């Protein structure tokens, strides 16, 4: 977390107020740093102009790694390192490798994706949350504006936030 950043933030009571405010604020040429909501607000990512998350691609790659790893392991162990005939099956009997192959695929896809999610979203035990207002995990929506990224003054931003529907406007330093 960078120190010494100055923010102005607006508090919104309802998700509709936040959604329309995001549009208005962006139209008046103000760069929004981030919004903080107590629950996933649908359409907020589009309103903020966020691109679709590519985390599912990561999941696919991890899953593919799992499949290849599992089949390589089983083929090496059962077919090359110590070949044995069990139940009259071939040494390398692909159908009986399918269940384990599938499970390892799912395991790696799930853990890889969740690990990626934690790393890119900076979630970790004792991670420090960027709490503008503790009510933002209860029932309030926060729109935070970084002063360094905008040419407008605090008073101007105050005015814009208030007029677009914020119930409170405050300043905070991180």
């Amino acid at each position: 977390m960078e120190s010494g950043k100055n923010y102005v933030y607006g508090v919104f009571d309802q998700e509709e107020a936040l959604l329309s405010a995001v549009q208005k604020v962006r139209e008046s040429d103000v760069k929004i740093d981030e919004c903080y909501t107590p629950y996933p607000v649908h359409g907020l990512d589009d309103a903020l102009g966020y691109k679709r998350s590519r985390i599912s691609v990561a999941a696919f790659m991890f899953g593919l790694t799992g499949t290849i790893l599992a089949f390589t392991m089983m083929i090496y162990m059962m077919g090359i390192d110590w070949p044995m005939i069990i139940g009259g099956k071939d040494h390398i009997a692909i159908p009986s490798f399918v269940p384990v192959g599938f499970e390892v695929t799912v395991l790696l896809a799930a853990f890889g994706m969740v690990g990626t999610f934690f790393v890119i979203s900076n979630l970790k035990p004792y991670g420090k949350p960027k709490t503008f207002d503790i009510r933002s995990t209860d029932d309030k929506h926060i729109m935070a504006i970084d002063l360094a990224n905008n040419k407008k003054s605090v008073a101007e931003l105050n005015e814009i936030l208030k007029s677009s529907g914020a119930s409170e406007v405050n300043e905070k330093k991180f």
Partner: protein
Amino acid sequence: MEVTSPVREVLVTGNKSYHDVSHDICRHVEAKPNPKWMAAMAISLGALFTGGYALAITLWDGIGVWGLNKTVGWAWDITNFVWWVGIGHAGTLISAVLLLFRQKWRTSINRAAEAMTIFAVICALLFPLIHTGRPWLSFYWFVPIPNTWGSLWVNFHSPLLWDFFAISTYFSVSLVFWYIGLIPDFATIRDRAQNKISRAIYGALSFGWDGAAKTWQRYETVSLVLAGLATPLVLSVHTIVSFDFATSVIPGWHTTIFPPYFVAGAIFSGFAMVLTLMLITRKVYKLEDYITINHIELMNIIIMITGSIVGVAYITELFMAWYSGVQYEQYAFLNRATGPYWWAYASMMTCNVISPQLFWFKKIRTSLWATFALSIVVNIGMWFERFVIIVTSLHRDYVPSSWAMFHPTIYDMGIYLFSFGLFFTLFFSFAKFFPVINMAEVKSVLKSSSGEIANKK
């Protein structure tokens, strides 16, 4: 864009505001444990320690203390294993399959159902582990690790090994899925916390969650992909459990119908267990506005459908045994229904096939007492189903001189009691220290489901 049909039953009643949702759920976490909870916990711990004695004796003396004999080599151990795994399936079904089908009513029950899944799978894992006799060596039998026998690897052709991979993957993926959902709620508890200790604990558990829009967007993608992974996973787990039997050549086990039949049975018993637990939680925690009669009715309908599928499977099995023309196969089923274990078969048929048909009556499926009673009946029936499949297929084998009966010893019963103690100890701890309802998800469906939001402060 999401399309929502205009007329819908209200999901959350009582005209709740967002703050009410946080308050209703968090207050149980914040309150001091009440005497009722302590009494319930004491009973579970009593079961845990009493049963723990049987477990300790089993580990010390070996599985010879069980009632197994040369003919019946699997009995209560694997019955309990399959029973617990089956119960676990409902949690994943609610959280993953209903998420994919956009069934918003799942939001009030998914947290507790997933917790139940995880605890049930822990109980299930216990049985295959101890039935190996020397569990401390079981790593060499299940996990492909290099060893001193010239690296004699585990047998990847064996369904028992597939089972190990399936159950352990299922457990860890369910745990991750559950935890991802808990993070935003832990953050709510952290921000409401009045004292330093709980702020520190829930702060650590919440992983520094602040509800940023970008994180929420990724969170939703992660949940959706996890649901997509967990859906085939949950179907694969009970399929592979059924392979333990279906790939053998024992009459009564060697049937291709097992995978779908086991999966339906698992969902059936799992929903029954969810209802047993939720009806108690709902009452004790006064969550009637979140878990409404509508939720209970929907779950009862699922029980009715899966119970009927199980009934069709029983009858199909009987028909196929007759139609196969194989005398061993025919005898296995004749013996099941009319042999010395006829009472187990009759209990199974009554509890699983006949009793859920009562849910055709709206009066019964919307009655709390009837639902509670039937949810227990269903789980008794499902335990008997596994007992019938396992023991009656084994106890009269090919040579009449080796025919035998299975008599459980106190150690068999004690370990089953231990698994109950473990399950309820974990569940009661969860109900006290964790938010029992997914607050963030309930808040996200509050508006679309209850029309107007009370604008209370």
